[in-house]
């Protein structure tokens, strides 16, 4: 279970890695414009910065995914060139990327050993591979069979597999790009326990997060990036609002600016919704002007319920009514016509056309409405896209930039933005602020406020409990595919929500 | 060995000295028969000292039209066309007509356009001869299967038609199956193998070209030439060799090299503005054990 075969054996404090004046330019964008950064053994070094500040680009140069245009990387006092994943592995650098790098068709075990499977007589030793996988999975506390194809896992479990995969390398530098973005509180705690344990063994850890409250919990030092430059370095104990000021350049007085509106007619009614093996007997309603939060642990079935409501997947029992009219089963188009919208949790797989540009992606949902006699009003669409991109502060070289090349947080803004254009009367948001910086989050919350103020309704799924508590008028909690309870905004606290979320899990869990 | 050893260049142009340029579009070169035809044509061109350009239409009528158009654009003095399809060659020939370039049709005629000369052996007649020869070999009784060429090609059509007509004269001979093997030796082998399963009593095979016939011979093994008589078509070197060996009972020799030679002769004459005969018939001949020696040398 422990990492005692780690190659470095606990020498804490010495500098392992340093970068000086790192610069990286992409067509149309200077992503990094002189970054200095150093990393010591046995520390957790947090990288902080707005969406598009250059955090991921920086770590991709440490992992060999990109090559710097200028500047140098020094490891153990000697300048190095990291040309590819192989070089990084030799230097003892392991990376968990912001976007998953798993092979969906292959099993969990195989993914954990990707690129270096155990071999016997020159052949892959599947048995040993799965044994090792089982150990690793136990270490991160994920209960899946190593033979399960990764493609069948939920997004949070995938993240845990990514973490296990990086642990398997026994690296002395571990880079984690927003590992907590899709995790719920309990997984985050488990992850932090692992991180602290590694740190105590002398592993140097680079940690990126947009959850500022995590920084004092796990970090030692913080380097702040702004516009591709490293602006300052502060201890992790720096107060949150000071960090915000350093990062965004201005203070944010209210993190959750929810302005409740008077609830009106129920717009969305879900009655006894169920699908065999996934969820059952889910009933609730969402009224005009309301934000209803949907909380739960990973795998509780929130995403599946949301998709069933929207018609993205069929359901076996129950019905969904929008404005009093029942929706046909499994028909996205009809759901949209009735006024539903869904921001999916998996931006790459379900939210974006990565190869298309920003304008195209933003216009996708409203494409039908912007068409007259089969022809699309592209100029009008472009204007609307420019407007939304401006409101969300998307950092881009222009509306023609390919979405693939946007930073993770900016991609998420596009996914949300296209639904803001759609003017849905009930908007379902599945992990809407995943990977979004504090400044932009407030922007999105304000947009939610203006939606509800104008009589729309929002159903918000989030694994970020403070967000659920801060923005919801009512909180629904799911556990094991059932609605475990409902809390009014006043009575909802971290503890009361968690108590409900684990309620049925406790009963059912035997091991 | 049959190929490779003849040493003629694969290149299209013959002697470069002549100022007469002749274009020739061959229906396909994926078939030894037409390779022979080209060889005869090239040898004749060399002898006459004219520049001959040969293109391969790959059994595609519209590619052939393209090639003829291209020839017209190149100021060829005469064009030899070996039509992929007689009907579809019409527009091609018309295009040449407009440019006042004489056209010689080789091996197949042209419908719907005027050619200066047609040099051909008759596929329908060949089919008839094959039927007679097969009947003779089989003692005018027994069961026959036909291996058909690529469905829809004129060669498959004409040979099939001739054979069907010819075999009617023998009431005791029954055609029990007709299956396509696409002029291909491998397919000939596979289809024949399969037909032997469902029709064990076969005593005769008509293959619409030598390639399929050789495949059938392979499938028949020791039976070929003994219990089962196989007749091919074309008289390719491999086919003639099989006739010599006795595995192939006969083939309908078309003398493709002679055909090519005659066509180029006609083209040169036409190019010089001399008068040419409207048709030149290159004899189709049954080649069997008795006369194979005359052909094998060529």
């Amino acid at each position: 279970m422990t990492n005692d075969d780690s190659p470095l054996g606990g020498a804490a404090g010495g500098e392992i890695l340093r970068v000086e004046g790192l610069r990286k330019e992409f067509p149309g964008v200077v992503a990094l414009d002189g970054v200095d950064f150093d990393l010591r053994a046995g520390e957790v070094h947090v990288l902080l910065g707005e969406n598009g500040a250059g955090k991921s680009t920086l770590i991709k140069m440490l992992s060999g995914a990109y090559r710097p245009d200028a500047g140098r990387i020094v490891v153990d006092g000697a300048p190095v060139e990291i040309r590819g994943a192989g070089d990084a592995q030799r230097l003892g650098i392991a990376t968990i990327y912001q976007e998953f790098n798993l092979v969906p068709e292959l099993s969990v075990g195989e993914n954990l050993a990707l690129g270096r499977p155990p071999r016997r007589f020159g052949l892959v030793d599947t048995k040993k591979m799965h044994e090792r996988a089982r150990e690793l999975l136990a270490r991160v506390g994920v209960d899946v069979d190593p033979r399960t194809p990764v493609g069948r896992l939920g997004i949070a479990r995938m993240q845990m597999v990514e973490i296990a995969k990086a642990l398997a390398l026994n690296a002395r530098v571990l880079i984690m790009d927003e590992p907590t973005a899709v995790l719920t509180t309990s997984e985050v705690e488990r992850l932090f326990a692992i991180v602290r344990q590694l740190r105590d063994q002398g592993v140097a850890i680079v940690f990126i997060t947009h959850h500022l409250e995590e920084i004092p919990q796990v970090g030692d030092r913080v380097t702040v990036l702004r516009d591709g430059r490293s602006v300052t370095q502060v201890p992790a104990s720096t107060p949150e609002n000071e960090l915000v000021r350093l990062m965004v350049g201005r203070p944010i007085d209210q993190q959750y600016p929810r302005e409740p509106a008077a609830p009106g007619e129920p717009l969305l009614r879900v009655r006894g919704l169920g699908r065999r093996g996934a969820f059952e007997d889910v009933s609730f309603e969402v009224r005009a002007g309301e934000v209803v939060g949907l909380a739960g642990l990973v795998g509780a079935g929130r995403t599946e319920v949301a998709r069933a409501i929207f018609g993205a997947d069929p359901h076996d029992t129950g019905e969904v009514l929008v404005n009093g009219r029942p929706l046909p089963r499994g028909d996205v188009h009809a759901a949209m016509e009735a006024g539903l919208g869904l921001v999916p949790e998996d931006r790459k797989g379900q939210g974006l056309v990565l190869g298309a540009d920003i304008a195209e992606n933003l216009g996708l949902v409203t494409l039908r409405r912007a068409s007259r006699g089969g022809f699309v009003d592209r100029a009008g669409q472009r204007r609307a896209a420019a407007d939304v991109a401006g409101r969300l502060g998307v950092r881009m070289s222009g509306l023609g930039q390919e979405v693939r090349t946007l930073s993770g947080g900016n991609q998420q803004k596009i996914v949300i933005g296209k639904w803001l254009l759609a003017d849905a009367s009930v908007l379902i948001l599945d992990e809407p602020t995943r990977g979004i910086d504090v400044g932009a989050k407030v922007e999105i919350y304000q947009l939610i406020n203006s939606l509800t103020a104008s009589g729309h309704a929002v159903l918000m799924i989030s694994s970020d409990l403070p967000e659920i508590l801060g923005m919801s008028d009512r909180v629904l909690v799911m556990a094991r595919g059932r609605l475990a309870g409902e809390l009014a905004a006043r009575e909802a606290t971290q503890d009361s929500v968690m108590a409900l979320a684990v309620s049925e899990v406790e009963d059912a869990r035997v091991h | 060995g049959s190929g490779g050893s003849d040493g003629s260049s694969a290149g299209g142009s013959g002697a470069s000295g002549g100022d007469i340029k002749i274009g020739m579009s061959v229906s396909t070169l994926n078939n030894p028969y037409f390779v022979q035809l080209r060889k005869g044509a090239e040898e004749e061109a060399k002898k006459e000292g004219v520049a001959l350009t040969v293109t391969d239409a790959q059994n595609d009528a519209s590619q052939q039209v393209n090639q003829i158009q291209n020839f017209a654009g190149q100021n060829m003095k005469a064009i030899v066309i070996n039509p992929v399809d007689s009907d579809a060659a019409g527009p091609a020939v018309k295009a040449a007509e407009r440019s006042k370039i004489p056209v010689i049709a080789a091996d197949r005629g042209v419908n719907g356009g005027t050619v200066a000369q047609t040099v051909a052996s008759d596929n329908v007649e060949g089919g008839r001869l094959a039927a007679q020869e097969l009947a003779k070999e089989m003692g005018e009784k027994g069961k026959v299967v036909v291996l058909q060429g690529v469905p829809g090609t004129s060669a498959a059509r004409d040979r099939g038609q001739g054979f069907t007509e010819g075999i009617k004269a023998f009431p005791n001979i029954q055609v029990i199956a007709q299956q396509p093997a696409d002029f291909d030796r491998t397919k000939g082998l596979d289809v024949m193998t399969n037909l032997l399963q469902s029709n064990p009593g076969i005593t005769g095979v008509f293959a619409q070209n030598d390639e399929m016939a050789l495949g059938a011979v392979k499938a028949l093994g020791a039976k070929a030439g003994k219990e089962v008589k196989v007749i091919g078509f074309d008289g390719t070197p491999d086919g003639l060799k099989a006739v010599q060996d006795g595995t192939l009972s006969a083939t309908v020799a078309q003398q493709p090299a002679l055909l090519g030679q005659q066509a180029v002769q006609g083209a040169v004459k036409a190019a010089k503005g001399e008068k040419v005969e409207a048709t030149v018939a290159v004899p189709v001949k049954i080649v069997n054990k008795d006369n194979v020696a005359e052909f094998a040398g060529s």
Partner: protein
Amino acid sequence: MHVSTDVLNGTAKAARRRHPAAAWLAENGALVALVVLVVGLSLLSGDFLTVTNLLNVGVQAAVTAILAFGVTFVIITGGIDLSVGSVAALSAIVLAWLSTDSGLPWPLAVLVALAVGLVCGLANAALIAYGKLPPFIATLAMLGIARGLALVISQGSPIALPDAVTHLGDTIGDYLPIPVLVMIAMGLITALILGRTYSGRAIYAIGGNEEAARLSGIKVDRQKLITYGLSGLFAAIAGIVLASRLASAQPQAASGYELDAIAAVVIGGASLSGGKGRAFGTFVGALILAVLRNGLNLLSVSAFWQQVVIGVVIALAVLSDTLRRRATT
């Protein structure tokens, strides 16, 4: 597409402006290859750069180009259509058969022929969208079925076309071959559909990420019907043009053209994994193939070597494009 706008938020860096011509070239890489090819052939053969010959090239490109325009829709959705050659042949046979054997007036026969192409395409789409068949398998099956039906209807023999239809293969005046006009018209229609219509934009989204398209309210199945339907319809048009050039419908016509059509689309910059592709690129791709064949004929390259040379030039053409693109980024 790289028009910079003034919506950059405050923190964004000014885009390093690329010269518009360079950007345009990067998007139309195949065009460079075509120009090189044309210049090279002009130098090598005096017959190449004449009006007549260039018109010939246009006529010779027409059928492949029309097929390829249809296939462009399919490839942008991430699919493939192997059946277009066979469907072209079937449509032409139906046209010839109806207007000769059944004595249907030829305009009606033309309509039926177009309908046949459309139906073949819709059948492909139904198998793919509702039967969940891989497009490769569905259209491979259709390749056999349509070719077989063409043979069955024609009994394996070519059927002469009515004279009226034959004129579709003619040249108006000295310099306006109808096949070229049809090709250009189909190209413009393709560009219009892809660039301006709802279906066109939806097709790109489906090819880029089918799930995202579906969750954005696009009826993916219906758009696939339209896509493959268009491909079938274009194939029928190509078949009629082809038959009119030959004055007869051939059951074996256009066999193997599917690979040429797909090659034209891919040379033109589309990706077989979907989401990319343009009418102009496809047009250039089809021209490259036609110029190449024409040039090799003019240069009297031996038949056996022609296949080798065509293979090498296609590889080089696309190679130069990808390498140049890598160099500029």
